[in-house]
């Protein structure tokens, strides 16, 4: 166990170093993107030169780069990144958190669905390897995995929203309404969630089902499985007690990686389904060179991803005794 604790401490330290590197990279990376924060103003002929000067001054863009960097470091430690350039009266962190809620609803739902469905398919397929279910489900999940998400998403809209009019074409709620904890509002939210969650889930099931299937097939050929069978255990018990726990190890890493997707948002689905979320927000912020928004978003995403990976590492330490031996 002592080995395990040292290992966790080492991983935690590594995570901290990674986070520091991300923090520093974030500042410089965004400043080498071409363009300037006043780009959008070209589309508005009414803005005065005085306004532009004031704007640049308010965001500290007229300061030397090292002053801006020091200010940024201060922001990181106070978790106050200032107001967004694209919405100069709203704190960047507020914008991100408001959008993060919707991202978590969409990508969280689809992640849970894809993990549950993907793993179930993977287990069934491995168990009945070579059978009709294995062949059919693998063909199904690979087919949709290969299909571009945006195209599949648009097909869903054309069929279910434009033609059949069963679902709304986009948005997170009926236009002009806000979420409330009422049955009508929840139903409305779910109806808007159906298409984007379906697109994301079906498109990514293969990632989980293939790895689960492969991992389980590997495990099933291990000697201890044969031993278990030889001891007269039922096939179900062999699978449940011996095969599955070991086959789950690669899935833990995969789920940890998926956390990045959950907080990072699904930019394509957000755009096609007009769904609020962090994905499109960060892409738009990159185009607009919205430094405060980018810095806050990437900091938050980095923190969550690093923590998720740390948790995965810790879990592995406990789930797989071999890790401790390394």
């Amino acid at each position, binding site marked *: 166990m002592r080995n395990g604790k040292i290992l966790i401490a080492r991983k935690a330290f590594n995570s901290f170093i990674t986070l520091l590197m991300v923090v520093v990279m974030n500042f410089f990376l965004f400043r080498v993107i071409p363009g300037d924060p006043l780009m959008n103003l070209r589309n508005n002929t009414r803005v005065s030169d*005085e306004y532009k000067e004031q704007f640049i001054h308010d965001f500290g863009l007229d300061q030397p780069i090292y002053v801006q960097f020091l200010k940024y470091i201060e922001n990181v430690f106070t978790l106050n990144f200032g107001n967004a350039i694209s919405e100069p009266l709203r704190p960047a962190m507020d914008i991100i958190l408001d959008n993060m809620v919707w991202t978590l609803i969409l990508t969280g739902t689809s992640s849970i669905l894809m993990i549950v469905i993907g793993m179930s398919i993977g287990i069934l397929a491995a168990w009945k390897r*070579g059978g009709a279910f294995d062949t059919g489900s693998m063909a199904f999940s690979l087919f949709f995995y290969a299909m571009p998400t945006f195209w599949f998403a648009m097909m869903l809209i054309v069929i279910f929203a434009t033609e059949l*009019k069963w679902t709304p074409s986009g948005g997170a709620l009926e236009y*002009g309404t806000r979420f409330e904890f009422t049955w009508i509002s929840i139903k409305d939210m779910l*109806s808007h969630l159906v298409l984007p969650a379906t697109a994301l889930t079906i498109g990514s099931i293969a990632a989980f089902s293939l790895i689960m299937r492969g991992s389980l097939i590997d495990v099933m050929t291990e000697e201890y499985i044969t031993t278990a069978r030889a001891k007269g255990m039922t096939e179900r018990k062999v699978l449940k007690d011996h095969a599955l726990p070991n086959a789950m190890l690669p899935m833990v890493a995969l789920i940890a990686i998926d956390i990045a997707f959950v907080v990072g948002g699904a930019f394509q689905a957000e755009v096609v389904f007009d769904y609020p979320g962090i994905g499109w927000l960060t892409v738009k912020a990159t185009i607009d060179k919205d430094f405060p928004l980018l810095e806050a978003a990437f900091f938050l995403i980095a923190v969550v991803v690093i923590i998720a990976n740390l948790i995965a590492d810790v879990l592995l330490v406990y789930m797989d005794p071999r890790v401790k031996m390394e």
Partner: protein
Amino acid sequence: MNHLNYGAGRRHLAAAICALVLLVGLFAFPMVSKQSGAAEEDSELIVGVLQKPDTLNPFKMALSISYTINFLVYDTLTSVEPDLSPGDQLAESWTTDASGLVWTFNLVENAKWHDGQDVTADDVVFTYNTILENPDTCALWIDYLSNIVHPVVAIDDYTVQITTDVKKATMLTIMVPILPEHLWSEVDVDKLDKIDPWDQTAFPDGPIGSGPLILDEYDATLGWIRMLAWDEYYIDQVVVDQVLFKIFLSDTTMMEALWADDIDVAMGVPARLWTETLETDGIAGQAVKALSIFELGINCASPELRENFPKASDNLETTNLSVRQAIAMATDKDYIVNDVMEGLAEVGDSIIPTATSYWHYYVDEETRWDYQIAKANALLDAAGYVDTDGNDIRDNGTSGVDLEFSFYYRSDKTDDRSAAIDIEDSLAEIGIKATPAGISEGQMYNLWLGCQMDLFIWAWDTDVDPNFMLSTQTTDQIPQSPQDWTRWSDSFWSNATYDRMYLEQQTTVDKEERQSIILEMQALLYDQCPYVVLYYPMGLYAYTTERFTNYPDMTANAGMTPGSMWFFFEVTPVADWVDPMPPENVNAGQDQSCTVGETLSFTGEADDENDATETLTWEWEFTEPDLSSTVLDGRTVSYKFDQTGIVSVMLRVTDPGGLSGVDDLVVNVTDLAEGSGWLRGVVSDEDSVGIVGATILVSDQSRSTDVDGAYMVSLPEGSYMVNASKTGYGIASGDAIIVAGETTWVNLTLALTSGTLSGYVYDNETGASIASATVEITYGDKTKKFTTNATGFYSFIAVEAGTVIVNVTKIGYEKNVTTAEVTAGNTTVCNVNLTPVKDDSGGISAVAIAGIIAVIAIVGALAAIMMMKRRKSAEPPSPPEEPPLTS
């Protein structure tokens, strides 16, 4: 080999089925949701837009969409008319004194803030003086108020006086929103540009303006802005109860929402989806001249200026006027407009687009540089540019520098790319090499501010007043370093005459005089070619026609687009709409003559596409030679003429919506000639019922029968043939012998040849009646149209007996063409059922069905192939592989 555990397998299968049922169950939700959302009482127009406001604080907003929203909330002193010319808003009139420096604005007296308080001169004075006193926090508006002397003063409650230190040409285009003093005076001046418009302390009732719409709610995350109609607006009323602006992340998504009926209006339809959109049932659109230009920019930076830019392009040949003019001549703008833009643009000339036609410089045919390769080549020859090294690129005869230029366009704009490729080909024909490179708009900014682009395709959104666009080409606007972000000149062109004229037009108050200076400036730009303006794009707007109607004619009035108040004054929910079509073909009859004491009858005729004849109001006005007049009501009236001379008769037909059409005739009244007698009679049908409005023709006289079918006419002694006729009846005639001083009676009988055709239009699925369906009937060479009323009813009278083709159409339904047999004298009922388009086809188009079948087929085929492979590999059967036993 594994042994299957069927029990566990079934449980897994059950779990999978449960998951599927969950998914299917989720699909069921929206059907409930959509229906529940439909039962709204207020009419709400949903407008799709593609930009998100930065803020709705009127001192901080900088994006076009923020202006669009806030100028519906706040009024300005003067505003923009539907034709984009300056017009009144809070100021209903204005004067200047003899010096042209003192302006007096008279305000309307019935404007109210959204909280019910009156808008007065104090509010205008507060707004203007606050800006003048706080140039930092009010930097957004300070340019508009340049040259205005502080303070602006209120002469009385509704009169404002503004003094300027020089004459100010843009005084009537000051787009500064007037704010309520009673709220904004409480805000700390340092926080004017920082306060949230929904700050509860400063604005307990939310943002308060005086414009036609109230800003109700804005959800920046979900991307919508709700606005409510302001009932007490003083110019006109927004017809719908609410307007919801929905912000979309991409134009494709917005169009999908329009096609799916989730929004009503789409602003900024992409050209690539325009045709498809117009072909969609229930959607119409208009291509409107936009305040926008697309240009081929040319770098004119002088060698000295380029020294300030370390990465500046070192090819100075674009500073040579002949090279720039040759480039202009080699640009095929017609091709770009017709082929690249598919006609959804106008060929460009000057930097002021044709949407603001008063200020636009129309280049005359002689001066115009059409696509003339030969002339361009000759110009370069004359300027000493020849290809000395045989590389097919001309070079400067003196320095040897090739005419090889860097050329950029925005990579995400496919139209720019196509235009760039065409320009590259054209330039190659005159020995100029310019290979276009697509870059992001961000990179474009960097290269511009680095003075690195020789040629580029870019665009501008222009203003109603030409001042700003003209300013972009002044020397003042040339960036002086790569960090000089606040200036606008991307051509780096400098011209002292232009700069002088720019300042001159700013102080020229006389509109025509200013226009002539501005045209001259544009002529200079056209000649000097810092820009080769390629085209003026059309703004594309699409909208549903099933829920809303009466969309304004934006092509005729570019200022009535969906962001303007004029648009919302017009657009009406279909249910509330009264057809504005007045009665047409109003006919009072022919001019007549009669003798004193005679009574004539008149029967009017009129068509109205949307209103039944019986709902029309008929009004006859008889004006005697002594100008006394009498008004009679009814489709058929009789009038006795007691004075000799010319009597004018005017018929006015009015529909239930209050719209009317008129026709007139004159009656020449003379004394009874000597030797004349009277001809009288009654025209009746086969049942001896008098026919009203039948026409009697005898000699050169014509009469109309009165409500009893009677007629009367004076005639000289002699024998006459009397003819009677009426639409829907046959013709009858009789002989009359007139004896002086006596009355001869001739009664005539007309046989009916027509009937009435009427009925209802129903929905085939629900059985509900369909309002606003178009019923068109054809018989012989005649066609008549009627639009069904709210109960789905239609009616045609005087339809000739025989077979009538009835054609009924309505958007969203399949056309139904049927026939009806109309019999003379009877009313034929012809009810028509229409089948909804979607229900009939199962609610899914052939394309979608084909798509689904294709997907299923591909999945099936893949599965089959894999199954076959598996089976193949399984043959010949091999014994199960036993795992090696470990000891």
